[in-house]
């Protein structure tokens, strides 16, 4: 990654929103020096500062994404660290928590070191690695969590493989807790989803596609909460898709269990009705569900049951998705459109204000994983976004930085767009 920009930076006259400090100023200034946020610049530094006019724009902490894939190592036909982090910068994300299901999987220190090397060379934004919970995310034997913690992982997860065995999950939670590692769990009972391609409901029945019931997610969300109670370990439920799962997390939080959760921006915007013509770009895991789920997820986002909005960026090559629906891989490339999708659904949709949305993109995810990110407090890294909440736009393939060919929102009318992104005060996106 590029080093921080040490010269002074002054973003002037923007609406400043920093949910970590409950700050929302209609017109304010943000200063940075030596790559860090500072309260003010000396007159000398002001005189030589780069000044950015924030008139009509919003400045906020850079976004923190708890769930994305960058293609490397091993899947560079889909995405590379270079293209994926450049896409992240365009989407306002300055910190990425990368899933470990690379080839080979990040289930060992060597692969993590390789990823670190690639990132130090190619990344535009901060990339925080995760390790698998079990070797090869096969759900059988624990991966070397302690060694991987030393190698820098911020969490462990078997990602979309899930952990199907409750005994292994229980021991994994206990063992991970010893290293203060949060376990991220993808909730899917695979015995209920064999051959399943989309949400089980009216649309799957109409389309003749094998359905994926809500219960397949909710059963695992429930067992995770029970195991959190048993082990007192920290667990974070990934990309909830059903209203029932949100309710399960709400109850767990009411019992003060150490459970947090996230939702993908796409699930806040779209439902299974979007699959009426078998678009492979919208074939995701978890699947898009019904309008009642979408509204329940937004409600859970607002009341804090859901801590974070993630991109769930899962790049695929265009050729992989140009095929029959059931043969296409799961996943959508979303880093560049996640903010706009969430903003369109939640803020433009009239459910909540921009400050709430930004909280779930910044301090919410940072707190869930205990990351020093997502804040404009003095002394923090100057990771910033400058955004225009009123900008109406339609994503066009030629404008996207991601190498993957599966952004599902091409041509979709969205409001809210990132104008500029800074990591350590160095501009990584925008004119």
């Amino acid at each position, binding site marked *: 990654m590029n080093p921080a920009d040490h010269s002074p930076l002054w973003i002037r006259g923007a609406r400043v929103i920093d949910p970590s400090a409950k700050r929302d100023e209609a017109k304010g200034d943000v200063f940075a020096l030596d790559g860090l946020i500072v309260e003010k610049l000396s007159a000398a530094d002001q005189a030589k500062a780069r000044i950015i006019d924030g008139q009509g724009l919003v400045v906020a902490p850079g976004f923190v994404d708890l769930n994305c894939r960058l293609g490397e190592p091993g899947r560079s036909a889909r995405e590379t660290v270079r293209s994926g982090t450049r896409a992240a910068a365009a989407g306002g994300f300055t910190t990425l928590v990368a899933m470990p299901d690379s080839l080979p999987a990040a289930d060992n220190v060597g692969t993590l070191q390789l990823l670190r090397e690639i990132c130090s060379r190619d990344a535009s934004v901060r990339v925080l690695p995760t390790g698998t919970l079990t070797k090869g995310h096969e759900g059988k034997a624990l991966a070397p969590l302690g060694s991987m913690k030393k190698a820098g992982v911020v969490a462990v997860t078997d990602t979309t493989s899930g952990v199907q065995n409750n005994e292994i999950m229980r021991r994994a939670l206990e063992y991970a807790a010893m290293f203060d590692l949060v376990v991220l769990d993808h909730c899917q009972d695979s015995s209920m989803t*064999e051959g399943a391609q989309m949400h*089980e*409901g*009216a*649309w799957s*029945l*109409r*389309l*003749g*596609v*094998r359905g994926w019931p809500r219960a397949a997610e909710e059963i695992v969300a429930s067992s995770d909460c029970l195991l959190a109670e048993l082990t007192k370990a920290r667990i974070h439920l990934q990309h909830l898709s059903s209203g029932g799962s949100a309710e399960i997390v709400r109850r767990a939080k009411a019992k003060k269990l150490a459970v947090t959760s996230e939702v993908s921006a796409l699930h806040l915007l779209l439902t299974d009705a979007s699959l009426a*013509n*078998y678009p492979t770009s919208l074939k995701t895991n978890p699947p898009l569900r019904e309008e009642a789920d979408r509204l329940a997820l937004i409600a859970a986002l607002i009341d804090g049951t859901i801590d974070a909005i993630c991109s769930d960026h899962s790049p695929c090559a265009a*050729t992989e998705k*140009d*095929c*029959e*629906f*059931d*043969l296409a891989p799961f996943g959508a490339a979303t880093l560049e459109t996640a903010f706009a999708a969430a903003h369109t659904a939640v803020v433009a949709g009239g459910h909540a204000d921009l400050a709430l949305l930004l909280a779930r993109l910044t301090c919410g995810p940072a707190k869930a994983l205990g990351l020093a990110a997502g804040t404009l407090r003095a002394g923090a890294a100057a990771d910033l976004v400058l955004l225009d909440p009123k900008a109406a736009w339609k994503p066009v393939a030629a404008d996207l930085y991601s190498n993957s060919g599966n952004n599902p929102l091409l041509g979709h009318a969205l409001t809210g767009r990132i104008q500029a992104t800074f990591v350590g005060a160095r501009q990584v996106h925008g004119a």
Partner: protein
Amino acid sequence: MVLTFVGATGTNRMAQQASWTKKDLTGIEELSRAEIEFLFTQADQFLPALAPGKGLDLMKGRTVVNLFLEPSTRTRTAFEISAKKLGAEVVSINTTASSLVKGETLRDTAMNIRAMGVDAIVMRHSSAGSARYLGSVLDISVINAGDGAHEHPTQALLDAFTLRQRFGKVQGLKVTILGDILFSRVARSNILCLSKLGAEVTLAGPATLVPASLKQAFPQVRIVHDLKEALQDCDAVMLLRIQHERQTTTHFPSLGEYTSQFGLNAERAAWLKPEAIVMHPGPINRGVEVESEVADGPRSVILEQVRNGVAVRMAVLNLCTGAIAR
């Protein structure tokens, strides 16, 4: 509209353009009632051509490729005969001969076939939505001969055509579809087709294969798990083949159990109204969903369905290929 096929194919083509503009038949969902009825009037005209030694030359010089990526005897044969009765050349490609097993994509296979100067591709495929996908990729006609558990439009058309032939109309008929609805493309196409034509549809069978949630997908249907209730007031019962290859073992205990609960035998057929008919899309599992005494009995119209299938598919091929401007 009166259609005649004596000479002047050019004027026929022009006449049909007014009522049929679709190059593809990917599903019943995409058809209007008027289009279905128009297609039936054309199929009526084709019935005489089914006699041995008869045939037409409406598609002379055209080539139809049957791309069957799932096993089929009846449907593939019916399409072959339909195309030949219209004077077209037919090439059939089945799974084992296909290059798809070598890793070629469906798009590439289809583009190669198209490049050879073909007018229509008739496809059967295990993936739901594959016919629509192919139709959007190609500028030649794509006819869906069954896409996964989604649709089998020509089966539904020939079923409704048979009902119309028997009862004079489909409007107002009560039709029970019995068996494996969940995994059946025939059921989906029939629900849509019969509803569009004004029939009342009842779905019957075990709750695992006929889940209550089907009502959300198809609000117009009635769902019944009691066989007597399903049979006693219907004008026609359509039996669906129990598809061993699609069901996992969790959907019903055994074939024997299915037969004991839902198999149609003479005793249960007596619950039907006297004029009610028994239909089956084939192939029949004798002794499973239907006993021979019923399949071969006076209520059975199974072989009429097969015969009508050729006329209906002739109409489909002729209309769809005719919808492409040359």
